[in-house]
């Protein structure tokens, strides 16, 4: 049986695009025929669940019963990839909890593939999280995600500051999520469907929809750019599939 894969998407700051990145990951796995499931920690009402209701379960990461629901089932369920969208402010506590239950040791020992997508905000305080989070990253693949979807800048204008944060952790891999046209983003929000279905002009139940061709074009272009970043970091290899070739969603 394939080694279970757990991908945590999080940040200690709100509004930096955690759920957006989690959505693109689920779309990416879907397009690459990799079975996945997701947990949304925005209890009791999850945003991720709104877009991927069939794959997503809402959990409370601080509750032991829900921790068991996620981690005790890693080896027993069919989807080998588990994506956890961690609520704002819960990244560090969640990683601490994972350490306490021995999950991080299992990842270090190679029994589980563990990756963290750390979505960065624009403030120095947000960047300080990197150092804090890095303490938990032994045995994990650590991705620093610069999310430009909300026009953030990351001190590129000050190279010294930029380097002091982004080059602090040598094993971290930088990832860039480009900006998506605001109206296109809003329209997908209103439609409450995965990006892939929006591009394919379909509703949640695969019924024909009537989204703007222009907005679908923007989303398709943007999603292709995001996925090329996932291809660059060899995400399919990481999850043990290794087949990022022709994808249904890119037709």
């Amino acid at each position, binding site marked *: 049986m394939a080694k279970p894969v757990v991908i945590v998407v999080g940040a200690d700051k709100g509004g930096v695009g955690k759920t957006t990145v989690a959505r693109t990951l689920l779309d990416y796995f879907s397009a690459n025929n990799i079975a996945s499931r997701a947990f949304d920690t925005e209890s009791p009402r999850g945003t991720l669940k709104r877009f991927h209701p069939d794959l997503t379960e809402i959990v409370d990461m601080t509750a032991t019963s829900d921790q068991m629901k996620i981690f005790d089932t890693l080896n027993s369920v069919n989807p080998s990839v588990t994506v956890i969208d961690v609520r704002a402010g819960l990244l560090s506590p969640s990683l601490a909890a994972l350490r306490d239950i021995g999950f991080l040791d299992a990842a270090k020992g190679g029994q589980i593939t563990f990756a963290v997508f750390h979505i960065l905000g624009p403030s120095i305080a947000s960047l300080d999280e990197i150092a804090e989070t890095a303490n938990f990253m032994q045995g994990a693949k650590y991705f620093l995600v610069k999310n430009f979807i909300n026009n953030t800048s990351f001190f590129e204008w000050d190279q010294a500051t930029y380097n002091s944060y982004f080059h602090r952790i040598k094993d971290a891999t930088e990832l860039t999520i480009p900006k998506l046209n605001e109206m296109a983003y809003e329209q997908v929000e209103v439609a409450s469907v995965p990006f892939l279905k929006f591009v394919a002009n379909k509703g949640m139940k695969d019924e024909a929809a009537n989204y*703007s*061709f*222009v*907005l679908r*074009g923007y989303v*398709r272009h943007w999603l292709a750019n995001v996925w090329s970043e996932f291809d660059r970091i060899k995400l399919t290899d990481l999850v043990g599939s290794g087949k990022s070739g022709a994808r249904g969603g890119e037709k």
Partner: protein
Amino acid sequence: MSRTPVYIICSPRPLVGKTLIARLLGEFLLLKNGTVAAFDINLKEPSLLEYLPGITETAEVDDTFGKMALMDRLIVNDAIAKVIDLGFHAFDEFFKMSEEIGFMKEAARRGVSPVILFVADTDRASAGGYAMLQQQIPATALVTIENEYVVRGELPSTMSDGRILRIAALPVFLKTYIDRLTFSFTDYLRHEKDSSTELHQWIRKNYFSFRELELNLILQRS
């Protein structure tokens, strides 16, 4: 089902004759098909809307609302030919957006045939614009307009490889005549008894060129 042609008349340069060609083509399609939809994205130059208000609506590509309003109409295979008079100021933005949203591919899939009518000039901006279009537009859908009034017989060599549609220069007094807002090419053909006049022949020659262009489109598809 037949395919719907979308003619995009463009140039990164002002005052090269885009609106004149859009008027000619609009009137030709109206005469031939009885219907045509024209879009004026050229409000900073002589405006198609002023010449053909009955078939023309304004459009813009400055913001996403404008792009949606325009492109969501252009992508429909409704058997109504479309003519777009694309102003020089909107040239870069239109084709950047078109590339980004995959307009050409989606059009092909939906039975829409975009034809880019690039009005040539001899300057650097035109050379750059044409090179960009060559990258983006299939050669079969890219037509260079050689407006003799603008290029004076010196069409740049880079633009002379593909399909070319020539528009002969008219004497100044005739140009002034056809530039009147009330002038209609088709009305002139209908009402002018003497078919040997220079203007009569000029209009008929241009209409014939458009008909050839249409036939080529049909041949390409078959």
